[in-house]
């Protein structure tokens, strides 16, 4: 029996004020149609080229090669697929040379031959297999462009490993390299520093380019111009340089290498490209006004981007534009000689937009779109050239330009948010005599930054708006002045390396998700989606009874009265992550400390973003609010990850505020929306009086919304060692007493408890008022505890216990509980991860006052009015056979 909840969204209190921007109709200029794949076959495209007889050859990730006859037929159904070869080990690059099909497999570059003329491959010649394949899934090989001398170029992915599963590794030669393969099979390592270079090709001039994908050491998705010997940023590949090999040196996982890096010709904004793939130049001149420009396949967003590059001071750089959306999970592109752009799709395991396989054709309708045709860097500005003459007054107002520049951090973390963002306003605007160009000046441009610009109020002579009014230009060099060394991806201090990313966090919606919250009408559900027939409603599903399905999504869908959801714990400075989902017209918010709101709103169609749009910081008294820098919100019914780095207000000893609350960073799905925004007081709807610690509040009184994956991490604070004494010397258990013949041991400076139930008592037995802390790791299914004021003896000790428990059931009191006094049911810390448990215990007039903090966040603040235990040992518990607990840094600070 499956529970079903349906709820009508309350009417939006304030209708969206801004006019909906007319949907951009790209199809009037570029039409997309889809070839019909053969029955039952999934054509997961990895490479495309044409045979001399006009047939299209398509290789796939399934290791099949198809011949498509009639690929240019007026009716796409007349293009017919025929299987030429199968059984290959992927095929992510294909090139036809003098009628011979060259295929790049994961393991080799091959020629596929049909020796008896029956259109089936019967002989496969190995051209080159001289690169390493370790067996890791991520070791894709991409291709397959050639240079004028007939050499092939192949880009080789790294594998993954420690310290995070996605952390690049190069365990066999030339992983993370672009290699050159001569026609005779000789392999030459060509350029290093790559991670997942899915797109490799040449521009109209024949220069080699590679697209990369965001990850460690890759802040976003760039387009690199490849030069022999160049290093492009990912250190793993350096293992195969002469220098590293000679010195038996291994690339560091976390320390940035000192090797000089080559710049990216483009950094594509992350909201445009999450997975960049192949690029092709239009060399046909039959694809509209963008001859010689590059077109870039974008898998995740299912679109095609356009790039206009130029060389400034000898270095490639330029602008990237949205070009054609709603194409599909495009990975491979190929122009036919008539100017038809073939797009090959695959999304398996990578996520993308439908269709996720097959082949499409993008054709120019011969109508010229009104677009920004070229962006050229000028003296402290840009020259924008349009495809059509502008109306006379178009674009001459500085307010028509929304210009931001930013850069990135170069580090081992997965991707980088936009960093050091800055607004720019043109001081001069001029129009060319032919009315086709605008020249912006006085922008205050700097090298090593990306400039992102959107333009309003520019119309053509007929008053029509731009089809796409934005671009992002990567500045490596200015047109004048000395040559710059600045890179967009800035070398910064590497972030703290944690054993696991979960370390230091409290998970507020894991296990019993509601236990860490208060709010009438909220439920914890298993699944949730938009009501297909009424998208302003959410439909939720409860877990099946007796199933292992989790109920870790919190929603007010189904509530008769709508209330906010308030956390059980209070926070100050935190990094907060919340996954949220809104229905159509949804309106909610995340109130840090119950006072400072980041707005959540179904505002995907908004062009001009206001503080009341998704990712905005809402207005308050004397504070106009802060609009999001970019559109990070994608739409109703989709889960979004919201990350906030928040600093609580500061007060002096007298309680006077000395520093405002501050949003250091707000991101949705890694798109930076706010940076260093000071909030002078509570925003509208926030609690009135500002305090140093307060609970988090998730808004639920404006209609249905859902949250999951809520986790917080307290700000790293300097370690406070004053007055603390080590109870455990790190070497042995001298002086400790073990009950019940327990099997306690010391291993690598830690105390390990395993085997049957037993307790380990501290040498001293006279602790009264104290703080007691340790770093703890508990096995999955394990149970333990930290006792204080405990008496030595067999069985369960007489004394207070701060719980450590990764079982549920049978013991519902989870880690952090003050056993039998205050029980916590949420799985705040995961098993097998280090966390800190910090107890204070002190006699007070009201009773024995006990607080327990996990990872520096107080989760228990309780009194034992009966004062059951007055003094005793501190002790560690080994609860049952099958449970393993590890302690380190076991310390006590006595209190008066």
């Amino acid at each position, binding site marked *: 029996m499956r529970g079903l909840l349906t709820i009508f969204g309350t009417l939006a209190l304030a209708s969206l004020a801004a006019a909906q921007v007319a949907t951009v109709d790209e199809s009037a200029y570029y039409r997309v149609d889809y070839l019909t794949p053969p029955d039952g076959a999934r054509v997961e495209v990895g490479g495309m080229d044409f045979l001399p007889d006009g047939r299209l050859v398509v290789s796939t*990730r399934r290791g099949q090669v198809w011949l498509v006859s009639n690929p240019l037929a007026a009716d796409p159904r007349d293009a017919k697929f025929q299987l030429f070869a199968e059984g290959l*080990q*992927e095929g992510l690059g294909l090139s036809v040379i003098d009628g011979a099909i060259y295929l790049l497999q994961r*393991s080799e570059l091959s020629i596929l031959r049909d020796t008896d003329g029956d259109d089936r491959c019967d002989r496969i010649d190995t051209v080159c297999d001289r690169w390493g394949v370790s067996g890791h*899934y*991520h070791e894709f090989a991409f291709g397959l462009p050639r240079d004028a001398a007939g050499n092939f170029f192949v880009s080789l992915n790294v594998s993954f490993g420690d310290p995070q599963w996605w952390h690049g590794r190069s365990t066999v030669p030339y992983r993370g390299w672009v290699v050159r393969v001569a026609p005779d099979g000789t392999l030459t390592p060509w350029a290093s520093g790559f991670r997942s270079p899915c797109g490799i090709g040449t521009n109209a001039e024949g220069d080699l380019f590679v697209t990369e994908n965001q990850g460690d050491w890759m802040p976003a998705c760039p387009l690199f111009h490849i030069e022999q010997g160049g290093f492009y940023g990912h250190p793993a590949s350096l293992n195969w340089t002469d220098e590293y090999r000679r010195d038996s040196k291994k690339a560091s996982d976390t320390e940035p290498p000192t090797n000089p890096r080559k710049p990216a010709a483009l950094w594509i904004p992350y909201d445009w490209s999450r997975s960049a793939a192949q690029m092709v130049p239009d060399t046909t001149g039959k694809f509209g006004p963008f001859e010689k420009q590059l077109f870039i396949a974008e898998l995740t967003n299912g679109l095609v981007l356009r790039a206009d590059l130029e060389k400034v001071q000898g270095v490639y750089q330029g602008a990237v534009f949205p070009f054609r959306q709603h194409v599909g999970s495009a990975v491979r592109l190929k122009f036919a000689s008539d100017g038809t752009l073939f797009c090959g799709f695959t999304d398996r*395991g990578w996520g993308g937009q439908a269709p996720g396989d097959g082949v499409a054709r993008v054709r120019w309708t011969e109508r010229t779109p009104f677009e920004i045709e070229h962006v050229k860097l000028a003296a402290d500005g840009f020259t924008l050239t349009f495809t059509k003459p502008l109306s006379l007054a178009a674009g001459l107002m500085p307010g028509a330009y929304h210009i931001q520049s930013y850069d990135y951090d170069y580090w081992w973390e997965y991707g980088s948010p936009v960093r050091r963002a800055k607004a720019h306003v043109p001081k001069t605007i001029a129009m060319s005599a032919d009315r086709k160009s605008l020249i912006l000046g006085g922008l205050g441009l700097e090298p090593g930054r990306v400039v992102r610009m959107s333009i309003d109020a520019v119309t053509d002579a007929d008053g029509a708006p731009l089809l796409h009014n934005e671009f992002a230009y990567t500045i490596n060099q200015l047109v004048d002045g000395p040559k710059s060394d600045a890179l967009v991806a800035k070398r910064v201090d590497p972030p703290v390396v944690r054993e696991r990313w979960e370390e230091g966090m409290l998970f507020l919606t894991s296990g019993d998700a509601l236990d860490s919250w208060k709010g009438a009408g909220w439920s914890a559900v298993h699944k949730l989606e938009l009501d297909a027939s009424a998208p302003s409603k959410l439909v939720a599903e409860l877990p099946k009874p007796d199933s292992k399905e989790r109920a870790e999504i919190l929603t007010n869908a189904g509530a008769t009265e709508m209330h906010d959801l308030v956390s059980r714990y209070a926070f100050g400075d935190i990094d907060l992550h919340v996954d949220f989902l809104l229905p159509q017209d949804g309106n909610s918010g995340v109130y840090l400390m119950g006072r400072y709101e980041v707005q959540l709103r179904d505002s995907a169609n908004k062009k001009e973003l206001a503080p009341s749009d998704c990712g905005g910081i809402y207005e308050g008294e004397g504070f106009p609010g802060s609009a999001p820098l970019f559109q990070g919100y994608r739409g109703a019914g989709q889960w979004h990850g919201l990350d906030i780095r928040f600093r609580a207000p500061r007060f002096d000893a007298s309680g006077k505020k000395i520093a405002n609350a501050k949003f250091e960073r707000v991101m949705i799905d890694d798109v930076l929306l706010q940076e260093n925004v000071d909030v002078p007081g509570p925003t509208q709807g926030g609690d009135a009086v500002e305090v140093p610690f307060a609970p988090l509040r998730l808004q639920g009184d404006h209609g249905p919304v859902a949250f999951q994956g809520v986790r917080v991490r307290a700000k790293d604070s300097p370690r406070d060692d004053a007055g603390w004494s080590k109870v455990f010397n790190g070497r042995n258990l001298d002086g400790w007493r073990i009950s019940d013949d327990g099997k306690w041991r010391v291993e690598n400076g830690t105390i390990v408890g395993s085997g049957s139930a037993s307790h380990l008592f501290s040498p001293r037995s006279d602790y009264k008022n104290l703080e007691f802390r340790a770093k703890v790791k508990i096995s999955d299914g394990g149970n333990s505890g930290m006792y204080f004021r405990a008496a030595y003896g067999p069985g369960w000790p007489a004394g207070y216990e701060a719980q450590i428990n990764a079982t549920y059931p049978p013991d519902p009191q989870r880690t952090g509980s003050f056993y039998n006094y205050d029980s916590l049911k949420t799985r705040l810390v995961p098993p097998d991860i280090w966390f800190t448990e910090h107890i204070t215990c002190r006699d007070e007039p009201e009773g024995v006052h006990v607080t327990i903090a996990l990872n520096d966040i107080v989760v228990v603040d309780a009194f034992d009015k009966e004062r059951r235990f007055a003094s005793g040992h501190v002790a560690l518990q080994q609860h049952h056979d099958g449970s393993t607990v590890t302690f380190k840094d076991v310390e006590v600070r006595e209190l008066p």
Partner: protein
Amino acid sequence: MNAVYRTWPSLLSAALCAFGAWACESPKPPPEPAAQPTEVVMLSDDEEEPVHDGRWVYEGNCAGCHNENGDGQGPTMLALGLKARSFAQGGFAFGNTREAIFRTISAGMPGSSVMPSFKATLTDDERWLVVDYVLTLCPRVDEKASGTALTVRDRPQIARGLLPAVVDGQPEWPRGILIGTPEGLTFEYRTDDVRLLAVRQGDFADRTDWNERGGGELVPLGKAFFTIGGGNPDAPISILRTGTIRPGRAQLRATIATKDEVGLDYDIYDSSDKRAAIVKERVRVEALPLGGVFTRSWEIRGDREANNLIIDVGAPAGDCEWVRGVPETWQQIGQLFRTPVRQDGWIVAKRGDVFECVHVAADKNTWLVKDSNSVRLYVPVFAGAEHVGAKVSATIVMTTDWSEELLAELGKEIAR
């Protein structure tokens, strides 16, 4: 009861007598599965003509070993002190798809649980009837859900991929090749230094790399009845120079799969990375009424200089008891370098219950030797890429029984 019980050697003889009556052809495409009977209709005991259905064919041809209920304890097997495959336990060594069972019935089974081919004794239609009947004797098995299974159709198929370890604890092979034949044998090679690892019988392969992000294993589905070097063999081709044998490195050059031939081309490089020979290795499934009889052949050409090559044919090898036609040992050959001993024909060795019968055919330049208890071919390769140094082949039969007559018959058939 109309059952005909025959002991397997006599059945084998009968099958051998029927040489020529059958030909090596691809099995007909399977007819649609017959509707599964909801209950087994009991044959009446009266004298009516029995229905010529799958059960009737099964009881007449299979029940002697597999028993009427499919538990593998038929009277013939019991008499021999052996046990046949129990369908009741869902066991099919060589695949449980209709096609795989059809192949097994048609081709027989090699190795220690030997089963004769029924290709000569039963028509295609009768064998398909048996397939559907046998499936009613075993627990229902789920179809492969993922749709990632590869099947071999009308001609040999080659699949490249990451091969899992042949034997637990051995390495996986990131560069591997499976050669599947219409007859149901699969030849499993590592290809970054070309070596045959095993030969399998049964269904072809599961392409797990079609799942998720790719990069998964290419899992051979057949059962390995022949494994070389425990799944991690030494280099099969070595170079002899000044009395020292050093392994050659085999660099893959091509794979070939036409209607007429299937195999690999590779070059042999010496320890200083100089090409020593150019090799075409082909595999062939023999059209014999025994399961799993196959032939490997090598055509070897020289490169710029002359070389002496040693080819390890893969069997017999290791700890075996030499039964017939034991070749000269390497030491003797070393002494008799100028007057080598040449030998063609069958070598038989016994390992456990299984006899490994190897038939070596070689041209005049080639000598058969025994070294470290394994059969090797000594092949001088003369300079010049156009010069064929040797054409050699080894046919391998794994059986629990053999006789001079059987080998003579097989030898004649191979020579044909």
